[in-house]
């Protein structure tokens, strides 16, 4: 069975400090991977997607970057956090592409920037 793991579970960081969030998917080969951001009480906003290792497409600019160093790993990072980066970060995977696609979400990382 496929599993998706995100780390850390939660972080409290200072404005201006760096950030690295991780996501791994086990049990699926060559999945499509996605990063989402969700403000408290808000909707989900897709940030990045990746179809294959080494290739990442940006959907929304939020002063964040993403990388896919391995087939099963997706990293979200920034060198300088802003207050507006606070929220819930979700990683998701899928096998298909486009409108018939079902995305499977991880448990999320809660980030508070002070």
């Amino acid at each position, binding site marked *: 069975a496929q599993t998706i793991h995100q780390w850390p579970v939660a972080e409290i960081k200072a404005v201006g400090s760096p950030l690295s969030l991780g996501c791994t998917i086990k049990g699926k080969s060559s999945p499509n991977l996605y990063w989402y951001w969700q403000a408290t009480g808000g909707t989900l906003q897709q940030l990045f997607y990746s179809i294959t290792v080494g290739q990442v497409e940006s959907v929304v600019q939020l002063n964040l970057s993403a990388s896919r160093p391995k087939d099963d790993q997706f990293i979200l990072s920034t060198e300088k956090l802003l207050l507006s980066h606070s929220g819930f970060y979700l990683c*998701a995977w899928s096998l298909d592409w486009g409108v018939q696609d079902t995305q499977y979400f991880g448990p*999320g990382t809660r980030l508070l920037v002070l």
Partner: protein
Amino acid sequence: SQLAEENSWALSVHEGESVTVNCSYKTSITALQWYRQKSGKGPAQLILIRSNEREKRNGRLRATLDTSSQSSSLSITATRCEDTAVYFCATYGSSGNKLIFGIGTLLSVKP
């Protein structure tokens, strides 16, 4: 702008009652998805309904799609406390690479 949006911010019912969450969307679609997000968790897909389908069921859940009015509904029968969650409808943008979620409807099921 939202491609799809639910029509209610919040709904509240008692256990055993039925409830319907509505969603409207702005462009032509090939499929619409319903997701449920419980507090502190990631969303989980409930139903994917394609544009050539009028209705789709999954246990106590029933989704409908009306392409002429560009609307969809998700009905839950015999609600349980564990159905308490935020319900989102979601569709893909025209480029096909971005899943766009509505603002969500918070459903509270009380004992």
